[in-house]
């Protein structure tokens, strides 16, 4: 409940918004970009709570700590949105991800959970040190922590193409690459996702990831923005590889959580593509618009997909999608939801995912660069590949013969889950039919550079 209450000051800020408010010597700012993304994070976390209620109760683990840790992570994400200096954003990033190390190992007795958590922890710490090292290079070069000042310094001393700045950018891309699981830093994701409790996985793949993207967007555009032509090509390669590899591996998965893990890796490739190309052209507004719009729509459809997986695993008692055959006939409600979310992830109109993909293609082709067109073609091919595994779930639950009998009693869906399902499906469908609402948010968010 408290989480929802925290939306109130945000709304007040939104309504009474006149211009960006700077506090703490300009290192913390409240502008429309931050308000929109904070709203997103708060809603995601709230949805995660709703998903968790029954899940955590049934586990008999420590409930208090669970919620405390999630809220800490939320705080980190909120700090990221507003931070405009290197130190604040680093604190935000770490605050957002440290609680997740603990949460991903929540199922103490489970070896997979332990393995996933250790992997996540080790790589997480490594990535933190990479980011920090990247930051320290910048600080050494410019003697400043504020984004604006750094980028001014780089410009005045014409260091745009300096190898040090590039090295620093590459380190930050790698460090954040772990957080958002881009190739080649993605290997922790499937194991950690599989081991963690499902609501935590949902949070990891939506909120943690979004936090990483917000940090990436902020840093790449407002700190490294002027030297975009040098890191743009690196990010371009990362984006192309991420979506292709994620999709190809997802084709082989039979575990639904691993499937979603790889699918969210592939989606990450789509989210960073506009940033990569806008780095090359220097027209960041278009890139931010596409990425933020994608992020908002992705958040809801992916949460919905995790919800369906959580419910279906409970119904069928199996973590093998091939054993889910025909289950939708016994529970059409969850069957329809699953279908909508997965086809939305695949980008089939009229569900939200199509618009997310569309704005990405739009910013890629709009760049007028050959590189953008190439990435657009790679993306189009990937969208078709991804359809195969997204459609496979629907095929199994609707079209295959039912192999086991499901009793009515087991098929009950708890109310919180039902509410989440309806909210997320509503947003997923709405964002497909009236994408204007969400693209306006993306549009507004993209103007923050002008402040």
């Amino acid at each position: 409940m408290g989480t929802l209450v925290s939306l109130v000051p945000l709304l007040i800020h939104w309504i009474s918004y006149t211009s960006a408010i700077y506090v703490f010597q300009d290192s913390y700012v409240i502008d429309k970009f931050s308000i929109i993304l904070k709203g997103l994070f708060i809603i995601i976390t709230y949805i995660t709570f709703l998903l968790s209620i029954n899940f955590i109760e049934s586990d008999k683990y420590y409930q208090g700590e669970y919620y405390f840790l999630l809220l800490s992570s939320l705080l980190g994400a909120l700090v990221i949105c507003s931070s405009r200096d290197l130190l604040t954003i680093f604190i935000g990033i770490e605050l957002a991800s440290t609680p997740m190390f603990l949460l991903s190992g929540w199922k103490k007795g489970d070896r997979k959970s332990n393995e996933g958590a250790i992997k996540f922890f080790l790589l997480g710490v490594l990535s933190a040190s990479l980011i920090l090292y990247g930051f320290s290079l910048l600080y050494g070069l410019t003697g400043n922590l504020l984004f604006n000042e750094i980028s001014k310094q780089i410009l005045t001393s014409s260091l745009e193409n300096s190898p040090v700045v590039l090295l620093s950018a590459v380190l930050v891309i790698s460090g954040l690459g772990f957080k958002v699981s881009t190739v080649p830093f993605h290997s922790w994701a499937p194991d950690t996702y599989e081991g963690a409790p499902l609501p935590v996985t949902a949070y990891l793949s939506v909120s943690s990831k979004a936090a990483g993207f917000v940090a990436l967007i902020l840093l790449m555009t407002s700190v490294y923005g002027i030297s975009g032509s040098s890191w743009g090509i690196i990010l371009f390669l990362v984006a192309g590889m991420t979506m292709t590899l994620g999709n190809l591996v997802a084709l082989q998965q039979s575990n639904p959580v691993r499937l979603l893990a790889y699918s969210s890796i592939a989606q990450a490739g789509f989210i960073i593509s506009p940033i990569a190309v806008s780095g090359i052209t220097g027209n960041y507004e278009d890139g931010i618009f596409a990425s933020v719009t994608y992020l908002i729509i992705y958040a809801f459809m992916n949460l919905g997909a995790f919800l369906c997986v959580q419910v279906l695993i409970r119904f069928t008692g199996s973590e093998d999608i091939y054993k889910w055959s025909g289950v939708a006939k016994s529970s059409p409600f969850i069957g329809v939801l699953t279908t909508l979310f997965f086809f939305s992830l695949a980008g089939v109109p009229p569900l939200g995912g199509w618009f997310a993909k569309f704005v990405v293609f739009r910013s890629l082709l709009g760049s007028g660069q050959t590189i953008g067109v190439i990435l657009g073609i790679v993306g189009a091919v990937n969208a078709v590949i991804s359809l195969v595994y997204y459609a496979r779930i629907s095929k199994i639950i609707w079209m295959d013969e039912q192999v086991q009998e499901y009793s009515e009693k087991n098929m009950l869906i708890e109310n919180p889950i039902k509410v989440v399902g309806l909210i997320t499906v509503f947003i997923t469908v709405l964002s497909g039919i009236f994408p204007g609402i969400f693209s306006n948010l993306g549009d507004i968010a993209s103007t923050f550079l002008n402040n």
Partner: protein
Amino acid sequence: MEILSNGLGLSAVVFLPIISALLILFIPKPYESVIKGVALLSSVVTFILSILVLLEFDFSKASQLQLGSKATWIESINANYEIGIDGISLPLLVLSTFISVLAIIYSLEHLPEPKSPKGFLALILVLETGMNGTFVALDLILFFVFFEIVLLPMYFMIGIWGDKTIRSVSGLKKEIETRLYASIKFFVFTLFGSAFMLLGFLGLYYRGNKTFSIPELIEIGSTGAFTGTFATLVFAVLFLGFAVKVPMWPLHTWLPDAHTAAPTVGSVLLAAILLKLGSYGFIRIAIPILPEQAKAWAPAIAILSAIGIIYGSLACLAQTDLKRLIAFSSVGHMGFVMLGIASLTSVGINAAIIGMVAHGVITGLLFFLTGSMSHTYHTRDMGRLGGNMKLLPKTGALLGFTAMASLGLPGLAGFWGEFMALLGAYNPLQGLNIVIFRSSMVAGAIGTVLTAGYLLWMLQRVNLGEPADEWKDKELHDADNYELAAWIPLVILTVLIGIFPKLIFGATNDAVVDLIFKAFGG
């Protein structure tokens, strides 16, 4: 009527079905008759609305877009809700609402297994929204969304209610049920085409004043604004998107599988309407916006169409499966439609549109008939059928009639499309390679002979002769009233269009002449 002229009428034609589909989802399963009632009512009302639109349509200005409206839809990318109809889309829109009514009437009594009227009828209605929407959309993004809406319902229609026989597929280790293979193949093929088509739309958007509006893009395109490699690439991706849907040889391979595996109503809707979305895309978008590229590509399209015609007919001659034969015949018939379009003349494009309507009516009926027969006989193997005239006189008579219509008998609807497409190909637009077109025409003419050949042979094997022993003692049900209610209107339409082709040309001709004039000058 005020209410029709401001675009509300067209919007209702598009959205009424999907709203009813949502309504149906909230009706509990046991109330089957309520579900059926809602579905029938909404499709009939939609049809009546489309007829009102037809009456309101000003035929003296058929070349202009009418009864439309424009409203902001997605502001940040300048995509609008822009709709309207002209003489080209009007016949197709009415055909779509008409066939949907018949499909629902047929489904009232003849639901495929597993019987679940709720899901099945809701899917038909969603499908109808996609089809109607595509024909009225005047904004590329709107067009794209409607074009794609049809995928999901058709995927599920084939996948859940389709043919359950097990078959082996080369390249797959395990054997797989036909419906599962066909449904995903259909989906992947079409999505592949349309993903690239979307990139093409975006290309037009950026080069054409950042607008997605089709009429505006046509204005820009007819001044020759799109040229060079850019235009070639855009036409190539649009071609890919539309040609998969038509389907043109060699992108047709999803079609026989999907048609054969789909439940009866699914194949009817696929053949009658869905295939037309592709050829309509050529006429509405690809040719007027990129006329120079269309000219450059026309010979290639003509050759592919000619191959499609010959290939489709030869494939038909090799079939033993009745439904698959009809499916392959669609490849040939759509080849004629595309040949007409490729000629880039008003004769050819008129031929294409009447060919589309005629194919919708005739092949739709053929799929109804074969679907019903395979339900009665529990087989589609033509080797086992025979003497159908004696066993099922009504169905047999209709099958004979429809096969005659399909082979292009003068006096029936199928004749005009084929005949005029050949005429168009004989005398294509000035500047097009005459040798290629005349050879395509000869190939097409040979195709008509082959078409007659396989259809007559089919009739001989299925309809004539003595019934095989296995059917002698069985009680076989001939067409019932629901079936006849769905079929007779199609028969009447076939005859009417055959005798009065002006029913179609009256609407299309001005629009087509205007299109050709704008795109290619006098």
